[in-house]
């Protein structure tokens, strides 16, 4: 257990802020372009349920039949856009060192939580906050605080990475 890792460090932005600000600008621009053309507030987690509607008849998923095609296309665009970054700036593939069990367990909880909670970091975080939606602000504060507590606990337990 490393007590230093649970305290704020002296340098809040060890990698600068440019990459984050520019990246955020582009993420917002992507959502804004879709909104300006279609009036749709695009989120990333509905894709999970809308795509399940191709293979499952559950009523929870079937409600997304009308939007499943464009949601698939939106997600394909996200993958390809990140692929362009990888080719142009990254110079090849990058892979995470975070353990598969953390990814799988976290993924299951993310899949449940985002759908029960009506949004994720893009739906609530980018579009909902942009809409000054109280529901989304409560959602964002909730998952941010819980995620911070969880990550600090996991780190304190000595799980790396």
């Amino acid at each position, binding site marked *: 257990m490393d007590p230093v890792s649970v305290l704020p460090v002296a340098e*809040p932005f060890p990698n600068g802020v440019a*990459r984050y600000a520019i990246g955020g600008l582009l993420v*917002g621009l992507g959502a804004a372009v*879709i909104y300006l053309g279609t009036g749709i507030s695009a989120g990333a987690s509905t894709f999970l349920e809308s795509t399940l509607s191709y293979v499952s008849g559950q009523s929870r998923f079937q409600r997304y039949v009308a939007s499943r095609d464009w949601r698939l296309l939106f997600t394909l665009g996200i993958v390809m856009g*990140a692929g362009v*970054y990888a080719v142009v*700036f990254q110079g090849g593939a990058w892979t995470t060192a975070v353990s598969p069990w953390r990814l799988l367990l976290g993924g299951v909880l993310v899949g449940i939580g985002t759908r029960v909670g009506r949004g994720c970091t893009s739906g609530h975080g980018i579009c909902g906050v942009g809409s000054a939606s109280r529901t989304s602000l409560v959602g964002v504060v909730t998952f941010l605080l819980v995620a911070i507590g969880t990550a600090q606990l996991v780190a304190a337990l000595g799980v790396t990475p």
Partner: protein
Amino acid sequence: MTDRHPLFAPLILVGGLLFGFGLAYSHMARPEVVLDFLQFEDFGLLFVMFVGAGVTGLAYLLAPRLSDRAPLTGDRFERRLKPFDRNVVVGGTIFGVGWGVSGVCPGAAYASLGVGNVTILWAIAGMFVGAYLQGRWRSGTSSAGAD
């Protein structure tokens, strides 16, 4: 999408490309960087979220003033307002635990696949399992809270 405006699909794709490129450029496609934020080692994520929300906020503010309806769908320009109930907090808490354990959220996971991170398929598979489980539990039990 066959009955859609011919520019509908291309626009969705362009929006997705920008969105995914932005997630990769901001390093949010790397779970390590998200975990660094959650562990207070790099606060950059706040810039991604709030600059992103600022841009969409501008779009939500301006669009209804420019036009009554969206050009490609004819839909009204409305803000993203969802009903509030206990589910928002319960779901947000479950999502928060998952995000804190893995450093992965849905959009960033798709982008992570795009930067070549095949290991992220564990997380994406998990998300589908989770979404399926809650769908099974909630299908038929209640039609309330439709979104």
